Structures are given as structure tokens and as C-alpha cells.
């Protein structure tokens, strides 16, 4: 671009060059973003979907449903928990290592962020539970009314 300095180009042309540079970078950014989003966005599943069409292991996804009653077990190390998430049609075993949100109890709704393991267990890195009247994970709004009522009863 040193030629720009040498050859006296018109102001109008300089503006054009700047515009083109800006556009190229921005369009490049947009294309990159679109490409990356297709690969990186983590999709939301309910148990029946994840059982029917499991995502490839290692891909970040979210799993939403109800914590099955009687399924919650704490491992010997005191910090790993195992439970099952179900939506009335299917159930998925989940394992999570960490401090659980306070409103996470059996029978309540939960959204687990994590990956599908090779053995069909969902490995969660993070659990989102209904923890406030004003904040419901959006995915849970669409659960059936019956389930929602159940959640309300359990957590009120």
C-alpha cells in the first residue's frame, strides 16, 4: 500500500479504498461468524430427542427436563452426583461434578449444559435450575403445562 503514498490519488478514491477495506473485513467477519456459529452453537435437547438422535459425543449441547424422582445419588467423593433427566417419554442418565444450585431437587426442572459421553451418559459441566420467580430458563417455558405445574408444586 506504499504506492498510495507515492501516487497522488484523489480523495474520492481514497474514500473508496477505505470503504472497500472496511466492507471486506466486515463481510469476512460475518462469514466467519456464520461458519463458526454453525459449528459452535450448542443445541437444546429434551431427553426423548437425545435418545432418538444422539449428538456426536463431545459436542456441546444442553439437555432440559425433569430430575427423575429417586434417581439422585451422590458418589463417594461427596461432590459428584448422578441423576436421570426425563420428559415423560425417555430418560437420560446425567453425571455432574460440582456444587448444585440450591433449588435443584428431585422432581424439579433442570437444564444441564455439557456433552454426551460415549456410554450414553450426559456429562454436565453446569446445571441451571429454576432459582427465581423472574428467571426461568427459557427452554423450560415451553414444557407442557402439566410439567410446569409439577415444577411449581415442587419448588414453591
Amino acid at each position, binding site marked *: 500500500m506504499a504506492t498510495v503514498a507515492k501516487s497522488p490519488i484523489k480523495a474520492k478514491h481514497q474514500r473508496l479504498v*477505505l470503504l472497500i*477495506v*472496511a466492507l471486506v*473485513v466486515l463481510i469476512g467477519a460475518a462469514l466467519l461468524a456464520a461458519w463458526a456459529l454453525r459449528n459452535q*452453537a450448542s443445541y437444546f435437547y429434551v431427553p426423548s430427542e437425545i435418545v432418538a438422535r444422539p449428538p456426536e459425543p463431545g459436542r456441546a449441547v444442553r439437555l432440559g427436563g425433569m430430575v427423575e424422582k429417586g434417581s439422585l445419588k451422590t458418589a463417594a467423593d461427596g461432590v459428584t452426583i448422578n441423576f436421570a433427566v426425563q420428559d415423560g417419554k425417555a430418560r437420560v442418565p446425567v453425571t455432574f461434578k460440582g*456444587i*448444585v444450585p440450591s433449588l435443584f431437587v428431585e422432581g424439579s426442572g433442570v437444564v444441564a449444559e455439557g456433552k454426551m459421553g460415549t456410554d450414553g451418559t450426559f456429562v454436565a459441566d453446569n446445571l441451571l435450575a429454576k*432459582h427465581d420467580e423472574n428467571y426461568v430458563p427459557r427452554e423450560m417455558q415451553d414444557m407442557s403445562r402439566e410439567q410446569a405445574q409439577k415444577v411449581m408444586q415442587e419448588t414453591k
Partner: protein
Amino acid sequence: MIAELGLAALWLAAALAALQLVSGALGLTERGAVLGGAVRPVAVVQGGLALLAFACLIYVFSVTDLSVKLVALNSHSMKPLVFKIAGAWGNHEGSMLLWVTVMGLGGAFVALVEKRLPERTMLATLAGQAFVSLGFYAFLLFASNPFERLSPVPMEGNGLNPLLQDLGLAFHPPTLYLGYVGLSIAFSFAIGALVTREVGPAFAKAMRPWVLGAWIFLTVGITAGSYWAYYELGWGGWWFWDPVENASLMPWLAATALLHSCGVLAARNALRAWTIMLGVVAFSMSMIGTFLVRSGILTSVHAFAVDPQRGTFILALLAIYIGGALVLFGLRAATVTEGERFAFVSREGALVVNNVMLSAILGIVLFGTLYPLFAEAMGAKVSVGPPYFNPMSALFAVPMLVVLMVGPLLRWRRDKFGRVGRELVIPAMLIVAAGICVLVLGGVALLPWIGLALSVGLGWASLLPLKGRNLRRTPLPIWGMVVAHFGIAVALFGMSSESAFSVEKLVAVRMGEVTQVGPWGVKLDTVEPVAGPNWTAMEARLLVRYGIDGKVTRMLPQSRSFWAPPQQTSESALLTRWNGQLYAVLGGEAPKVDGEKQSRWQLRLWWKPFAPLIWIGGLLIALGGLLALLGRVAADVRRIVAKDKIAYRREKQGR
């Protein structure tokens, strides 16, 4: 009574905003020129009335007047006073009222002090400001009245979300709002300049302090918000790419670009149309951010209740303002004449790179934030997180930071790399050395590795503009630039070090048991119940020791239960050393396994080397902005005083 007074003040302020718009617009025509004189006083009174309305809201919150619906929904008589007051803006209606108040006050301040621009441009600017305010007044009065009464009066309020009952957060939203709304002034200036075709250095110089001010508040607000998320959520992270965080980051990116292009326009009269465009984009991003947060259309920790009517209302406002501004820009951009020319290798060239890269990052963040919405419209539910945002934004941030090392050394107009190349040998060597050091340490991912290496070189290079200057006579804006750029290096080092070297440990321990995390030995001493004004908690006493023979220090993480509304939060405990921070969170009691007698408590511990530098860097960036602002304002004041003196002498001499 007070609530009605507030509502009346709000209606009056809205009416005055309409008057300001009409008289400002008519003042531009020949027949209506008389009306132009009314605009400034009206703007001042409008600001005062908005402030009065906001003061009324604070009052009803501080006395917990439960007959006001908003208070009943969001406050509680048993809450500490400071959180009662902070509760006034910790909800949808109150925060919108804060928004229009700040906007009204900003307009009033511009009307009072800004005398440099041609009066016509000022009229158009203030009319533009009134136009934007009017939409938000309408939104408040028709869709979210903060002073609505409730009957029958409830016995007690619902309380404020405990996560928000924190001093840091009490002042975080107002700070961000000052930033968002400060950008509305830049927006109005851009509109005013477009309407009256007055785009030039004078316009840039008038706009710059406002952009700087808004940018400082945004920087402080984002830094504070990040620190709040870090210690209050108890997840150990400091940035989650949550939609609301992105909503504050996007205006910051746009404002940073605007700040730099303003500099080019003021100094060299180049990048004219581009600066106007950025002025429009910056405030549009503030409004999109508000839309995302207030409409609740995206999942977020910060999102308030979902209300489709409000969402539609804000969407309509967005369409009117952004669409209108873009149409105006499209119509007038062609008449904005070309600016001065410059070579690629020049200060302007470097700033163009800064602008384009910041815009690209802005695009990446905007896309990632809105993508879940588009995907949902197509029937798929997705969430986008760090695996997208981190590498994609780094792709543009890294080249920008490399140019940042060179840019401030270049001369305006035209320069040669050869002239500055020698200065850059040391930073380049530092980068290589740091890169090799980190490689030898091993186990560091690509992005933190780049960040660590780059930050060391950047730290050195950012100080180079001071070389060869008499430090005591260096102008304040130069100091500001150096401090802010150095702050970027500091923050980058903190971020990279945090993600490269953090050690995490999650354990269930018995009383008296010692666990190791990084160089720390942590012993759980006791767990005891404690109580606060509106919560009870289990508090762990941890005795921690750095290395083998360090001093024993106490840390007290709590697991708090609030009862109004019922919710549990973990109060993390932080211990800061010069080389990092120890972060401790107390979980619950682990269920007993196989006839265990003594109970075990869950502890989550992190050792985060140099993590505090993230926020220290953020504050340095803001401090740089403040220095630059002081320098600019001082220069302006000196000029005004000198002008007045000259005028006075002339008068005295009877000329």
C-alpha cells in the same frame, strides 16, 4: 402523594421533550427562528423534571411505600436502606426511569455548556435528543409506569433478588446507564451534524468529551460488572458471554472505535462520514442492549420478567430511531465531503485498522448474541458460548493489538516503518521471550499463550510514546492514551494468566482436614450458622497458608439463604496476594455415605494467578480516559477564559 408528584413530573417532562423537539425543528426554519431561543431553557427544565420524578421514586422506595406496585413487587421493609434505594433501579420500570433521567440531565448539561458549535447544529442536536427521549417517555408512561398504585395495599413486599443485594451491583447499573445514555448525546450530535451538514473538526471536538465521558462510564461499568459476576455468582469465571454482558460490551466496542475516529476527525479532518456512522452505531448498540435485557427475549441471569408488549414497544422504538438515523445518513452521507488524504502507513492508517477491527469484533459479538433468536425463529434452540466468542473475537483482536504497538508512534499523514522500527525491537524481543518462557512451562492453550506473549510486548510498547518527552510537560491527553493502552496490556495479561494457570479443586472435606490447591494449603476449621438482616447463612472458617511456611490467614465463605424472596446465594471469599487470588466457595453438606459419622462439606477452591490484573487493567483504561477528558476540558476552559478576556479588554478599550 409523592408517587403522584413523580408521575406528574414525568408527564410534564414528556410534554417539554415534545416542545423541545418541535421548537428545535422549527427553529431551523426561517419563520420559526424565534422558537430556537426556547430550546435550551426547555432542555434544562426537562432534565430537572426527570430528576424530580426519579427522586420521587427513590423516596417511595426508601420509605417502602407498599401502596406503589413497583415497591411492593421489588422491595421489602426489612432490607438495609442502601439496598432499598438501589432497589429503585434494580427493576424494569425503575431502570427505564433512570435511563430517561440520565438522558434528560445529559441534554440539560449540553444545553447549558456547549457553545462551540453553530447554534443551528445545536438546535438540531437538542431536537434529536428530545426525539429520542420522547420515545422513552412514551414507553414509561404507556407501557411501564413506575408509579402505579396497588390496591389493596399488601402487608409486605416481595423483596429484591438477593443476587442484586450487593453494594457493587447497586452502583453497577447506574454507571452503565450513564455510559449508554452518554452515547445518546453522541448520537444526537451526529444527527445534528447531518441535518445541518456541519461535519468537521469543530464538530468532532465538541462531541469528543461526551464520547470520552460515556466511554469512561462504560469501561468502569463493565469492569465492575465483571468483578461482580466473578465474586457474587461463585462460578469462578469473570466473563460468561452472557447476552447482558454482550449488551454492555457492544456499545463499548463501538464507543472505543468512535473515540479513535473522533480523534482523527478532530486532528486531521479525515474519516468524516465514518465518524458519523459510528456515532449512530454506538447508540444503536446501547438501545439494542436495552432491548435484549428489558424484553427478556434472551435467557440471562440479568433478564427481568418476560413481557411481550414491552418487547414490541422497544422493538418499535429501535426501528424508528436506528432506521430513521440510517435513512438520514443514507440521504446525507453523499453530501459529507471527502476528508483529508493520508498514506496507509500513518497514524490515521493505524486508527483505521483499530476502527475496522473493533467493528469486526462488534459484528462477531452481535451475531453471536442474536443468533439464538434467529435459530429459534427457524425452530432450533441453541445457545452460543465461549467456544464461539473467544477464538472469533481473538481473530480480530490480536492484529488490532499488534497495530496498537506501532500506531501511537507513527506520525499523522505519512510515515515510514523504518523510522519507528528501531523502537519496536525491544517489544518484539519481549514477545518472543515471553512466548518461549510460556512454552517451556507448558500446558497452556493457544489463546492464553498468544495473550501472555502479546501483553508483555504491548506493555512495553504502550509506554514508548513517552520516550524523549519531558514528562512534566507532556499533555494530559497523551498521558491518558499511554495509561489506557498500558491498561489494555495489564488486563490482557491478567485474562491470559487466569485462563492459562488457574488451578481448580472441588472436594468434600471433614472439619480439620487439609486440602491443597496450587501453592495453598486450605484447612476447614469450622462451619457455623450466622445471620444477617434478611438472611441466614452457614459460614465456613478456612485457615489457609501460602507455601509451606506462609502466614496462616482466615477466609470466611458463606452459603446464604435469603427469605424474601427465598433464594440461596454463595458468598465467595477472596484472598488477594500480589501474584494472584485465592477464591473459595462453600457448597452444601455432602450426603453421608456408608455409615459415616462426621459430616463433610463441599468446597470449591481456585488459585488464580494474577487474576486481579484483569480489573486493575480495566480501571487503568478508564483512568486513561479520565486523564484525556480532563486534558481536553481544561484546554476548552482555558480557551473560553482567554476569549472572554479578549472580549472584556476590547470592551474596556471602547472598541
